[in-house]
């Protein structure tokens, strides 16, 4: 970074100094935190740091221990299940709501406000509310039982096999509004003439959606998927608020595993290894997306 101005912009020479000074926070953040911090963590994931980070290398020991830990395996399984389901459901529900909202309805603003307000709330608030609604002694289960079905059981947050669905319900409540908004914006971007043409040709509405509109909305879908997916990997607060990972370890997620090992179990090496695996997961999501955007996108023109 000497004071060289970029080619093709002749009016900026050495006087760009102010811009560089102003960019110091950005440069520091990019280099020290994002690059430095990430490499630091990956580097130390190969050590056996316990209470404090220290440089005694143990190779991939931490990773072997990680994948041998039932708690981590549960966390990964939960994330996979939760991820796939929340991706599918939020896209389907979000799109359906958007399609309904796009039918030139009255009170569109009111409906949109109602569907989106949960998104303004934090995951902690969302988690605590749903913990209450799903409370077996007072919530849905007890209400249905008091109506006569005394054997009715709906107790996801205290049942290890289905606890992740309880979290999913809350996550969908919080996040589908945003998906609906993005999809609605996408639908509004579709030319009215396409609908007219489809109608003239006698194509049924559902077929128009499936075969014409959805393929046209490909960019919106990709954006939405990336947004949902990067949120899924980070899911932490919701689990903490709703179940604290319980019962037992049955609603454990990777982000919580990392936190617990770094700040509670004083086993930094494990925490670093686990967070490096999270980084790998994100890279697995981002790389195909970048490929789709460039490789696939270019070919289609």
């Amino acid at each position, binding site marked *: 970074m000497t004071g060289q101005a970029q080619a093709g912009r002749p009016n900026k020479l050495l006087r760009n100094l102010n*811009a560089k000074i102003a960019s110091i926070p950005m440069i520091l953040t*990019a280099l020290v935190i994002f690059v430095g911090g990430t490499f630091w963590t990956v580097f130390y994931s190969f050590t056996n740091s316990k209470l404090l980070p220290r440089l005694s290398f143990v190779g991939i020991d931490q990773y072997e221990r990680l994948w041998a830990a039932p708690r981590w395996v549960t966390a990964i399984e939960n994330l996979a299940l939760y991820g796939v389901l929340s991706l599918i459901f939020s896209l389907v529900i979000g799109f359906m709501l958007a399609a309904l909202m796009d039918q030139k309805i009255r009170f569109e603003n009111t409906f949109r406000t109602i569907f989106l307000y949960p998104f303004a709330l*934090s995951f902690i608030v969302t988690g605590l509310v749903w913990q209450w609604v799903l409370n077996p002694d007072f919530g849905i289960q007890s209400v249905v039982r008091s109506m006569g079905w005394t054997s009715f059981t709906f107790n996801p947050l205290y049942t290890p096999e289905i606890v992740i669905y309880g979290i999913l319900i809350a996550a969908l409540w919080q996040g589908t509004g945003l998906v609906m908004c993005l999809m609605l914006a996408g639908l509004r971007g579709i030319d009215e003439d396409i609908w007219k043409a489809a109608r003239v040709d006698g194509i049924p509405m559902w077929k128009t959606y499936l075969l014409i509109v959805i393929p046209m909305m490909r960019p919106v879908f990709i954006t939405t998927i990336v947004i949902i997916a990067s949120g899924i990997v980070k899911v932490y607060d919701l689990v903490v608020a709703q179940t604290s990972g319980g019962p037992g370890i049955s609603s454990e997620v990777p982000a919580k595993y990392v936190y617990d090992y770094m700040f509670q179990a004083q086993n930094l090496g494990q925490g670093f290894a686990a967070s490096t695996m999270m980084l790998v997961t994100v890279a697995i999501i981002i790389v195909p997306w970048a490929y789709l955007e460039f490789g696939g996108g270019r070919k289609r023109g």
Partner: protein
Amino acid sequence: MADVGTLNTTVAGIDAVAPRLGEGPSGAKPRPALSSRNIMLYGTLTIAALYYLLPLYVMVVTSLKGMPEIRLGNIFSPPMEITFEPWVKAWAEACTGLNCDGLSRGFWNSVRITVPSVIISIAIASVNGYALANWRFRGSELFFSILIIGAFIPYQVMIYPIVIILREIGIYGTLTGLVIVHSIFGMPILTLLFRNYFVSLPEELFKAARVDGAGFWQIFLKIMLPMSLPIFVVAMILQVTGIWNDFLFGVVFTRPDTYPMTVQLNNIVNSVQGVKEYNVNMAATILTGLVPLIVYFVSGRLFVRGIAAGAVKG
């Protein structure tokens, strides 16, 4: 890996369509009001709306009941006798650990975290975006690309190095430390937001000011700032709600007496000792959600814009 171009198109795509969200019905003439199609349509929407409203209703109703009434009935029944005692207790008396001064402590901590974080992060990001749009220098795009890719890296990967840095400086566990953390992690998306906005302004404006002899800061303060009020409002909504709702950074970078409201709320509700006071818990939950809800209802369409642009931040 993702690069700037990709993200630009992503966010630009949202920017282009977001303003159209509010467009009301137009085109064909309305059909008869009570067709079976309309009954289906409004029926489905109303049922969905009830599902989204239900938890809010349950929160409010529970917070207005006394404990005996909660033990008797179900969570959906309206309160027989309205009491505001749970609210008072949640605000001023509920216990977290050693402190028994309710959520008020967390509320004021959150205010003291949110206000400077929002101001600093927006100040830094707007200047960054301005420099990137109008004063590119060698390497500026590279740093920007790193910043944007960084937005996708899980926070967990970078948290511990930051803990060490803050500890070395001596501000670990203080509100100052947390403000810095929020400013850092707000930077990618806000910088992108401002950069795209400044790029969209007519370049002649900038050139004319240059010809007149205005410098970096002069152009920024006298020309760019007055023209960018809308984007500042969007950035503010994004940051206020995002920082207020944060939990992870709060729990990692603060100590019990500097906990933000979300952390304190979780500790009050999920504390294992004592009798669970569900009404107090729900009042506390509403109180914590009140600030972002107010921002949401007051800002309306701008909220959608801000959130859509910032959703990658998660």
